[in-house]
């Protein structure tokens, strides 16, 4: 690994991460526009979220409670960027060669914990209740999601994302091989991205936007970058696991053109996945946290278990080795 | 049991009130303050289970305060107003919250707005008006316009107003 190579790789990674955050903000703007049109409204321009982040970061005064309060924006943004660095985007395997799905699963937990710490330190009871709801929601949607990950790992017999992409290229896309698991994953995705009906932790009417109650100015601006990054993170996770990560042309044969084409295909795929979530979000009221927990540990878990059984049978008894 | 029969039984002279557009029969009766509790108990047992309101009227010319206890019966659909008169300078009466729990809230309001003392009601302190240190505002001798002029108009404008608009 010569120094020049490392430099090129790191600038590429930086470019991909920056693009990911911009795509995230663009997607949030599109979501607001789509929701507005569903409600027969004009809705804000697509670039509205860029302006919002700019305004927040340019605020004159910022309020903080204590030194633990600063954990939230720092850990949240750093954690989500680290997780994005471990996710292959459009076939470009950034760090996913040196870390696998389980490492990614725990890196996704870093921003969640850092954010929970910061909002806990704001000494506001709304924040405490909000984080309790967020963790309960996490426990509920992680059940089906872990079963889905297990099904994938058992069927493709690998935990590393880069080999998973290659196997999906050679054998068949995840959604083709394990359609039931893909359905369970999409339902779990709705909870992961905290879209309505599962935006219980940040409910503005009941607990004054939960953990975000004391964040304003640059804190809220960085947390908005974090939520933009997590939008791209979760949709890319679904696309990488089930839709072949957008790898259409083999980079070995076509070189740079392949990377560009794959990037556009990947962009289209995550847009489709995001639109599914946005359409559900636009028409659903908000669940209570008990309903969400009962819901996730009933139907999506059953679907995911069936998917796991299917993967288990196919890989162990029928001997289907991708 | 009809309100008229209760009045006759207790020997109180009452007065039927005609109110345009309101068909339910309404009766008014002036009662001695010390006999009021017995009368209300009697009405309560005879079907007048709903205590509607306790209100106060400040007769500044006659120099007394009138407390009106308004009861309603679901069986006979009748309204009864029992009123007592207290001296205006220092109106004092005993609490009746043991008969109906909601009487306590009405007593607190009447105390704050009219200054009527109710012995036995320990929650008579600050109720609706925060940091109020003037005389009870609903009394007729309280001049609101003078109060407003002296309290609000006297607050100076902060210069640097954007009068460029």
């Amino acid at each position, binding site marked *: 690994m010569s120094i020049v190579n490392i430099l090129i790789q790191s600038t590429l990674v930086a470019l991909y991460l920056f693009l990911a955050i911009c795509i995230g903000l663009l997607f949030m703007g599109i979501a607001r526009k789509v929701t507005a049109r569903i409600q027969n409204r004009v809705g804000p321009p697509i670039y509205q979220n860029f302006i919002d982040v700019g305004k927040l*970061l340019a*605020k004159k*005064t*910022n*309020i*903080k*409670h*204590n030194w*633990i309060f*600063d954990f939230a*924006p*720092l850990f949240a*943004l*750093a954690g989500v*960027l680290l997780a994005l*660095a471990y996710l292959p985007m459009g076939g470009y395997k950034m*760090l996913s060669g*040196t*870390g*696998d799905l*389980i*490492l990614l699963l*725990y890196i996704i*937990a*870093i921003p*969640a*914990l850092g954010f*929970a*710490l910061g909002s*806990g*330190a704001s*000494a*506001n*009871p*709304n924040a*405490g209740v909000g*984080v309790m*709801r967020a*963790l*309960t929601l*996490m*426990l509920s949607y*992680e059940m089906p999601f*872990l*079963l889905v990950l*297990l099904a994938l*790992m*058992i069927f493709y017999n*690998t*935990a*590393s994302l880069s080999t998973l992409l290659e196997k999906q290229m050679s054998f068949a896309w995840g959604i083709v091989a394990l359609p039931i698991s893909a359905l369970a994953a999409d339902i779990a995705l709705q909870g992961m991205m905290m879209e309505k009906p599962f935006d219980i932790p940040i409910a503005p009417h009941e607990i004054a936007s939960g953990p975000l*109650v*004391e964040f304003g100015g*640059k804190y809220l601006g960085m947390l908005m*970058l974090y939520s933009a990054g997590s939008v791209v993170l979760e949709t890319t996770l679904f696309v990488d696991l089930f839709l072949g990560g957008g790898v259409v042309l083999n980079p070995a044969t076509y070189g740079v053109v392949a990377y560009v084409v794959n990037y556009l295909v990947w962009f289209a795929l995550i847009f489709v996945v995001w639109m599914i979530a946005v359409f559900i979000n636009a028409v659903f009221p908000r669940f*209570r946290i*008990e309903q969400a*927990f009962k819901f996730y540990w009933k139907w999506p878990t059953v679907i995911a278990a069936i998917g796991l*059984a299917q993967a*288990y049978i196919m890989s162990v008894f029928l001997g289907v080795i991708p | 049991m009809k309100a008229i029969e209760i009045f006759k039984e207790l020997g109180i002279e009452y007065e039927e009130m005609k109110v345009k557009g309101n068909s339910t029969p309404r009766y008014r009766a002036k009662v001695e303050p010390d006999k009021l509790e017995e009368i209300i108990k009697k009405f309560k047992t005879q079907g007048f289970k709903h205590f509607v309101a306790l209100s106060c009227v400040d007769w500044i010319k006659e120099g007394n305060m009138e407390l009106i206890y308004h009861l309603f019966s679901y069986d006979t659909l009748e309204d009864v107003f029992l009123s007592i008169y207290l001296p205006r300078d220092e109106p004092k009466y005993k609490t009746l919250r043991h008969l109906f729990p909601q009487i306590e809230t009405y007593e607190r309001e009447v105390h704050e707005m009219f200054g009527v003392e109710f012995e036995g009601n320990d929650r008579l302190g600050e109720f609706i008006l925060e940091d109020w240190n003037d005389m009870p505002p609903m009394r007729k001798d309280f001049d609101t316009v003078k109060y407003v002029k002296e309290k609000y108009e006297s607050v100076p404008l902060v210069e640097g107003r954007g009068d460029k608009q």
Partner: protein
Amino acid sequence: MEILGIFGIFVLVPLIGSVIAYLFRKYAVAVAAIFAAVPSIALYPFYDTNVSRIINIGVKLNLTLDPTTWFFMLMLDTLAFSALLFAIPYIKKAQGNFATLILVALAGANGVLMARDFLSLYIFWEMMSWATYLLILRKSGEYARRYLLFGVLSAYFIIMGIGIVYYYTGSFLYSATTGIPMSGWFWILLFLVLGFGVKMAVVPLHVWAPYAYCAEQPFVAFLSGGLSKLGTFGILMAMYSIAGISILQGFGTFRGVSLFGYPFALLGAITAFIGTVLAIFQDDLRKLLAYSSIGQLGYVMVGLGLGTSLALGGAIFHAFNHAFFKSLLFLGAGAVIYRTGKYKISEMGGLGYKMPFTFLFVLFAIFALAGIPITSGFISKWMLYEAAIAKKFVFIAPLMLIASVGAFLYCFRILYGVFLGQLSEEHKDVKEAPAPMLAAMFILMLPLVIFSIVPGWILGWISKILVSMGLKPLEYSTFAYYSPIGNANMLIMWIAFMLLFMVSMIIFMMKKARVVDQLDNYLAGEAPTQVQLHAAHNFYKPLKDTWAPVLKYSINRAYEKFSQFFVEGFKEIRKMYTENPQDYAAYMGIAFLIFVLVGWWLL
């Protein structure tokens, strides 16, 4: 030099120390800390040796110090030293008694680790159990009785195992176990594993743990961090060094895993799940840490049960991590209890602002417990998951994964309930924990950081252990570790995390922020009231309501009902003694008649 052999340093020194420390009345704990330091320092020259020695005290005790013992002793002695260092300001009454008992327990534990024959194993095991019983007795008789009951149960299981071995081989040596038929091995292993399992608080036998962990915090840190690892060591030795991998496979294998080990792995996964779920709903800080300790030991049980080199390496590494982050958590809880005198999480609150160092240590221990990659806690969990998924176990893997997500919940409950949220009036002047406590916690935090950056060192020690037990060594390099289905490189992750942390720091530093008092909070425009608005009471109420039908059944109550059954039974039998002689005469007559009949029938 004869006496100063391994027996001298690791067993005699603590024993002598316990006597000497008792003489120093008020400074007993400090002197005991010095005596505990001797074995932990003397350990390093013995790094890669295989010293063995036979001590003849009427009965032959042969002790050896090989890499396995060295590894576990490294854990135990550092824990004992830091627990005693922590205890200097903590223990206020009867320091002499506390110091002696801790050192006796340490001597017993070292003896168990070095023992290579069943007799010395049993002697040191009893010494350690008795010292623990007396230490819990210092706190409350009722809790100590529960511990004693299960301690005796575990001793009986071990004696049964030893008895069967002696019956077949006629000698107590570990190595002299040839010519035992498979059925014999089954019973030996069953009794030994259950006997040691009691000390590791496996689910059906875990009832003593939440009560025993309510004793004084420095001792509890040593008990839950160190002494529970003796159970792990016992099972490890019984299954892999006494029996050996060939005999285990002899019981039949299911996809490469011995049929004897698989049910224990399943039991471990269930322990992990139940331990975590129970820990989520506890309000008492010590009980919460106790159930979480049971849950984490469930992970170690899974690794021991599976038995592949990756699973066993993960189990040993997780035992190492658990030893350090769990005792760090207990010491942190001890510091908080020392300063506020309260046990309930909902009564504390906002202590993180007043005790910043304790908060940082507990935060790091929480990251290790939850398995966040910037600590070494992640690597051991990663190895256990990879082992389970590589072997395609569809019951063990989900239970373990969902248990680790559940771990986030009670981790945050500790952090929010105790350290964040609103600081109440009475804790306004709480000071930071005293210096010896912070030093003790720092010692325990070091390995979790070092081995998360350079996992290669500890993976080297562990694969030495695996090789000595006849298993394949682990695949690892200084910064990365590999498994059949995936790999992870910690150095790259650390560098990436540091760089990205700097990026968000740059954005963060663009504007200054004004510090605001904790009461200047948005409460719908309302005034800052004196009402305590710390939202930690009954923290996971919605979750508790949904789990209510399942939470009805509790193993504690099952034991109580079971014991109640016996009490009723004995009451009936007691009625037989009716204090009037005629009944007794009648009983004698009947008994005589029965004897005559039986004798006649036998002849």
